[in-house]
């Protein structure tokens, strides 16, 4: 998502001396992913994202993976520019390989990955060349406790029970917060059901969404990302003759 244009004229124009303008970065995300949702329960963390890569208003890539299993303790979800997310995924994959090569059986845990991402993203923003992403880090720490974190393209980072990016923060987060308030001892299966409901509502109301998503789980027993699935939708409201008055 970076196009650096150096406009320096070295005596080319007829009325020019040697003038060099500062390096400019054209900033706009190109292929984008929409909301990523996460819920942290006492049993484990559940994270969800759809499989759509939008090219502006075109639903261009309908089968991309926006959830990535970093290692057995962490799954990350990427919102925003997909190229920048692929770059981060490449770096994280290399990190996991480096951990493995050390050979002591210790891999970076979710808080470590969250912190690393925060440093990288904040550093890039300071250089006015951000990675145009919001990353949700779902996993567990070395003690096995569930961990859910959020990092922004400007380096905002925090840990929360419920987390959502983009449109999800307006539509899904109220639903997720209510579900957690009513049932704080929710299990992983219940959390998955809540996320499915949220993804259904997001499909109704987010123009850049798709009814095809993956749900990832990090708990004591498993760390896995599901196969793509869909939510049942009810469009019968549209059957009523409506119009505008």
């Amino acid at each position, binding site marked *: 998502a970076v196009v650096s244009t150096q406009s320096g004229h070295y005596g080319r124009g007829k009325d020019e001396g040697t003038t060099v303008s500062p390096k400019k970065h054209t900033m706009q995300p190109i292929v984008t992913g929409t909301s990523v949702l996460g819920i942290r329960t006492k049993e484990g963390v559940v994270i969800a994202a759809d499989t759509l890569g939008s090219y502006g208003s075109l639903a261009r890539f309908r089968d991309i993976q926006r959830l990535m299993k970093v290692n057995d303790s962490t799954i990350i979800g990427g919102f925003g520019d997909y190229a920048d997310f692929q770059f981060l995924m490449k770096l994280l994959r290399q990190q996991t390989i480096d951990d493995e090569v050390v050979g002591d059986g210790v891999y970076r845990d979710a808080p470590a990955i969250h912190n690393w991402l925060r440093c990288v993203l904040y550093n890039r923003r300071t250089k006015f060349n951000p990675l145009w992403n919001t990353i949700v880090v779902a996993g567990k720490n070395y003690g096995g406790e569930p961990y859910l974190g959020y990092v922004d393209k400007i380096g905002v980072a925090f840990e929360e029970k419920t987390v959502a990016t983009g449109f999800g923060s*307006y*539509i*899904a*987060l*109220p*639903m997720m*917060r*209510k579900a957690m308030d009513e049932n704080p001892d929710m299990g992983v299966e219940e959390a998955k059901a809540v996320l499915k*409901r*949220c993804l*259904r*509502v997001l499909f*109704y*109301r987010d123009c850049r969404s798709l009814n095809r998503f993956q749900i990832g789980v990090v708990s004591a027993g498993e760390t896995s990302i599901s196969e793509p699935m869909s939510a049942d939708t009810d469009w*019968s*409201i549209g059957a*009523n003759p*409506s*119009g*505008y*008055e």
Partner: protein
Amino acid sequence: SNFIIKQWYQRRVVITAGGFSFDNCRRNAFMEKQGITFPTARKTGTTICGVIYKDGVVLGADTRATGGSIVCDLNCEKIHYIADNIYCCGAGTAADTEFTTRMVSSKMELLKLRTGREGRVISALRMLKQYLFRYQGYISAALVLGGVDVTGPALYTVYPHGSTDKLPYVTMGSGSLAAMSVFEDRYKLNMEEEEAKALVCDAIKAGIINDLGSGSNVDITVIRKGEVEVFRPYQVVCQKSQRQGDYTFPRGTTVVTNTTEMVPFSALQVTDEEVMEL
């Protein structure tokens, strides 16, 4: 006689001249450059919503009015009376929603007297949209209009530019996405009244809790055929907490070292007088 006919004709053809006059804009821009700050409009930064249920319409609203990031009014009324059977929730600039709904309410009353019939929601809708369109969106009133008339229950949204929607469930305002998520999750056709009230209350609460522009209480108005029930408030979500301590100083805190008698004014005697010549 020519003159009389012309007058009669002119009285019949009344063209409503449209919109605002922008003559002062250049002057205002100049003033702003000089450093004069204009007052900001008080907005309602709102969550409003409505649903159609089995017997009629339930309208809901929060009660916070904001001016910038300050809460101007903790308990303002956002569900406005249009007619006995028609109510309208308003989001956007508080003055615009208040005066627009009052204007239409007055026109509906005149129409009722003229026709001898109970007003219809569609009439109020037409009046609102034709008025707002004339002002090209400069009157920032986003409304949820609902009521029950001879044709049955009706629920509409009106946008500041004058477009309208006819839907079974609607939300407007800054908290509209939070409220809409509740509706999209749980709305069903032909709900019972208690179900509808609970749904509207939950939708407004989602806005109050998750949106910073909405807050305080949930107001609900239920409109059925022939009667209206106003719950103000339906539920108090944000209550001002009790002050932890007493900040008043008890009598005797300040030590009195000396007391002097206060001389009443009447006890004073005029010793010397000089009247100034005008």
